[in-house]
């Protein structure tokens, strides 16, 4: 598990309008229990080498249900089911680029 803030570049459109393709985001370590509404970085349940960005829709027993903000253009828990907390590797905290849209990633 990474310590401290790290950075990701957003690819894809499922988190629009919150996050757009090419946005750069600071990621903090995950909370022990993610909060509903926050945007998390998780391992793709179908390909552990790949990271996904989705919003927490519900927190259950050791797992989260995640959804893209753009429901009609997102592959998320509706498709791959709940994701174990151990696969949640961070939470998106702050968009630092592009500068014009810099700001906190809101829950």
């Amino acid at each position: 598990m990474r310590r401290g803030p790290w950075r990701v570049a957003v690819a894809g459109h499922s988190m629009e309008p919150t996050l757009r393709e090419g946005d750069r985001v600071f990621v903090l370590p995950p909370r022990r229990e993610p909060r509903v509404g926050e945007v998390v970085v998780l391992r793709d349940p179908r390909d552990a080498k790949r990271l996904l960005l989705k919003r927490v829709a519900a927190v259950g027993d050791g797992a989260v249900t995640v959804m893209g903000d753009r429901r009609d253009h997102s592959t998320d828990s509706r498709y791959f089911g709940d994701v174990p907390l151990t696969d949640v590797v961070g939470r998106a905290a702050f968009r630092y680029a592009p500068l014009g849209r810099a700001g906190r990633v809101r829950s």
Partner: protein
Amino acid sequence: MFGRLFKPPIVAYAHCDIPCGIYDPTPAKIAADTVAKMVEKINQLSPTATDVTTRANFVRMTVVKEEHAQICKKELEILWSDYFKPEHLEKYPKLHDTFWKAAKLCSKNKQNVDATAAAELQAAVKEISDMFWATKK
């Protein structure tokens, strides 16, 4: 300690498998079959008939043939540019050539009423379809 700061950020996917994950050669096959069927039906029309019904059918069949030749090309291009990956090219070195020729056959079938060209298009689509399904095994 600060080395990580200067590396490019890791990519995280806010992605969607749809429409980017569903590929199927069937629409191209249906389009190619439609082209062949329209050529067959056009050729069955009486070449000397001048009644309105025959003329209307001729126009309709021609329009459908041309539309489906175009649909076939579009469907093939989606498979070509979006589905097939460099690793497929290693296994099928003729991949680009096959698609290129198939796309040209779509144009040829749009322009002409040619049963041979229609059969060639069907064969080309089948070849692509076989490659596609082989990659799924």
